[in-house]
């Protein structure tokens, strides 16, 4: 149920190893729509996500999953894709398997575990849901590459300039604070000058210290979780005080450069919208509408319960596939054109 923390823990290592780049920088791999206005990438990503999350149809979901994986491999590289799949697939499996246990309905009984009846329909539905979950997560990762927050800011920066500025400020501060937070521990570990040595146990340290604060600075291997959390809270207090003091200087710098000169803040938008963008956007929207209608038709004709409808190969799936694969195809084309 808590794939959230799984994702956190596995990717936290990447962040603290400085491998994870802040997404507020232009993507270095070549992705689809990168030479167009960000609104194209935004429309495409929104459409794909809507299609995946709203159209619960086995074929559409499978198509979405396949194209998500393809697009991710092209845009982010196979290493990142498979690293993500390592924690996403077990999650999907959990959803797939858990569903029949939570909702016992359907008509084809597979087996009974005591009071729980497992039906084929609910298992199939669970599998579909699991696939949809993985597809959504994968598409969101691709979206992070296709539409890094910087390009997103250029979209919304004009409409919500203060918000764009705040996002920019927070994004600047976070890596700095993470690095400083890590350095706290390193610096305190390196300062073995006073009696709170890193190698002694808490008991020995407690016995004869100059001040109780001295040993609190150096957590020892035998500290409990609670003591480590207390150390973390203490250090985060110093970090906060430090950042607040720095923020006063930042506020001065902002005021020195005319902050609150006018209530109408404008926004610098380095990307502009021209005829080529307009044509491409219109085509994309038309395709999206067609695909949406077809998906609606397909879903309204498909039932999971009480018996699963027959899976037919329908011509209407082809435009859907085309739309879903558009991201992968265009990204591949961008990469190949640079080779």
């Amino acid at each position: 149920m808590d794939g959230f923390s799984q994702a956190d823990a596995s990717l936290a290592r990447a962040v603290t190893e400085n491998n994870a780049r802040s997404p507020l920088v232009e993507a270095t791999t070549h992705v689809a729509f990168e030479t167009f206005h960000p609104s194209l990438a935004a429309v495409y990503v929104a459409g794909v996500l809507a299609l995946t999350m709203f159209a619960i149809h086995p074929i559409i979901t499978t198509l979405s999953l396949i194209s998500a994986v393809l697009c991710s491999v092209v845009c982010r590289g196979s290493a990142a894709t498979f690293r993500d799949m390592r924690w996403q697939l077990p999650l999907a499996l959990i959803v797939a398997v858990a569903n029949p246990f939570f909702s016992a309905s359907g008509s084809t009984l597979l087996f009974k575990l005591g009071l729980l009846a497992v039906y084929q329909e609910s298992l199939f539905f669970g599998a579909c849901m699991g696939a949809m979950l993985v597809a959504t997560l994968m598409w969101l990762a691709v979206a992070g590459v296709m539409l890094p927050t910087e390009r997103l800011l250029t979209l919304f920066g004009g409409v919500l300039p203060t918000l764009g500025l705040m996002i920019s400020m927070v994004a600047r501060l976070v890596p700095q604070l993470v690095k400083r937070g890590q350095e706290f521990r390193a610096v305190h570990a390196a300062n073995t000058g006073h009696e709170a040595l890193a190698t002694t146990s808490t008991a020995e340290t407690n016995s004869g210290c100059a001040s109780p604060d001295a040993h609190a600075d150096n957590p020892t291997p035998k500290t409990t979780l609670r003591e480590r959390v207390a150390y973390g809270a203490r250090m985060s207090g110093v970090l906060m005080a430090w950042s607040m003091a720095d923020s006063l200087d930042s506020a001065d710098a902002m005021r020195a450069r005319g902050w609150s000169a006018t209530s109408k803040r404008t926004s610098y938008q380095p990307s502009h919208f021209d005829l080529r963008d307009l044509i491409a956007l219109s085509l994309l929207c038309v395709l999206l509408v067609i695909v949406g209608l077809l998906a609606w038709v397909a879903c309204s004709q498909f039932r999971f319960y009480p018996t699963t409808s027959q899976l037919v190969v329908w011509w209407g799936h082809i435009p859907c596939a085309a739309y879903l694969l558009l991201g992968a195809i265009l990204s591949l084309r961008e990469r190949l054109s640079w080779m």
Partner: protein
Amino acid sequence: MDVAHTSQKPAVPTPQTSSVSETQSALQTLSASHTQSVLQTSSVSQAQSAPQTSPTPPALEFKQLSFSYPVADDAEQVLPVIDNVSFTIDQGAFCLVCGATGAGKSTLLRLAKPGLEPAGKRTGEVRIMGKLARDFDVASSAHTVGLVMQDPKTQLVCDSVWHELAFGLENVGCEPLEMRRRVAQLSYFLGLEPLFHQRCSELSDGQAQLVALASVLVLEPSILLLDEPTSMLDPLARADFAHALFRLNRELGITVVLATHEPWALVSYASCAVSIDNGAVHKLALSNITTPHNLGISKPTAAEKASKTAQLTGAWLRYSRESPWVLRGVNLSLQSGEIHALLGANGSGKSSVLKTMAGVLKPNRGICEPQRSSWSQQNLRHGWFSRPKKAGRAKGNSEQLSTSVRQGQSTSQQPGHSASTQPGQISTSAVRQAYLPQHPELLFSGLSVAEEIAASLPHGADPSSIQSLIERLGLSALLDRDPLELSRGQRQLVAIAKVLAAQPTLLFADEPTVGLDLAARTRVAELLSEYAQAGTTMLLATHDLLLARELAHVCSLLFDGEIACTMPSEEFFERSLFFREESLS
């Protein structure tokens, strides 16, 4: 009587004069051609009745300005920071405002920037381009006066450089097309185009300060106020920044007023100078500003029986598998009682060497002695709560430690060093180590200054032993304050006090004198010299070459991940042609 001052705008030289020697000769021609009396001190009536002889209003004019900070009701009256100051700075001048830290330079500059005046009691008049300071609103203040401050990293508020450059223009409601024009032209002038899409957190300090300058210039102010802009930069970045200011002043005619405690570095660019002392401002002749050649301290004598305290052999280090090697086979050894300076450019890996020797980082290859327990050896990869590796706390560790350390510990005379052996511990405890990081705030724990320093006393030490330390560093007046409210230089001094109060036998210091003025540097150097005399081994990573030459016994130069040379410091500086303090300051 009234000294009528005449000044002509300096002739703008052609942009081709880009090399330093050419600009210096051009400067000499300029200074010969116009009178340098851009400053005058005059009495009340004279100032009011003196006719404006110059056709253009002076850029900055102070008339009997006095300022004092607000005091609490029960505190005694404080002396005014600035007392009855009157002087003018002409348009197009490059004026240096000299004075020790805390003399009032920042206050003077802030009073000249409408909108950023500090709160307090102010009498007198400030005129900017002939207009009273209080007549400026936010927009006109931004368009007329620009202010660049000391710390490059806190001045940048946005995530990317392009956003930072456009920030000021966004604030005043500039049209996007106009914004793009100004940003493009300024980026080309200052050479910021390659940095345009970079993150501000990835910039070096020198680059960050240039971006901060650019983000102020994009509003096209006529006056540029700079409050110690280069004090936190390394020498190379200082030269770049100073040259950028020079071009702005001479090519574009922007008035530059720069407050600094090291005026000798910029004297060749400046056209005039003042100094602030005890609230009064005096004109300073540029020829009176000389580079200091020594700190006036005595180098401690090296111990005769020098034994090895710590050693790094063949250390290779990188921060992650994808990143390049930072250290490529560094060999460094520290003898007991010696002061070892580690020199090298910004980003060459000095901090990494320091951290590796301090046991904070474990080298990927190579050995660091003395061996640390696996607890203190942690790579910076993990967050706060990764599990330490299984500690191999066998008795073998104590044998690995060189016996000389134990010998050195017992034979050296150290002031107030208490006995530190306890039964059953590994003898790495015989080494009392202290590490002064580049950011002094990392040592603080959220207490007041006095408590911070007292907290790092070793067990059994006399609390009054820190009194002399506090007095010598000039912290007596600050004991009740929160260290995070102090200025950068004062924080540095508190951190140094904290580190020295622990009476370490092994001291690693990363840029100990950054942000300090000459007097403070001398005091710190004296203290370090005394501690070394008493037997503390020190490794100082610094770009302060004067300190390295005066204080250190041995200098090592770090280049390309390796130690390029290790020599006694006199020999090092005698033989070095390109790496000297005169050429880099």
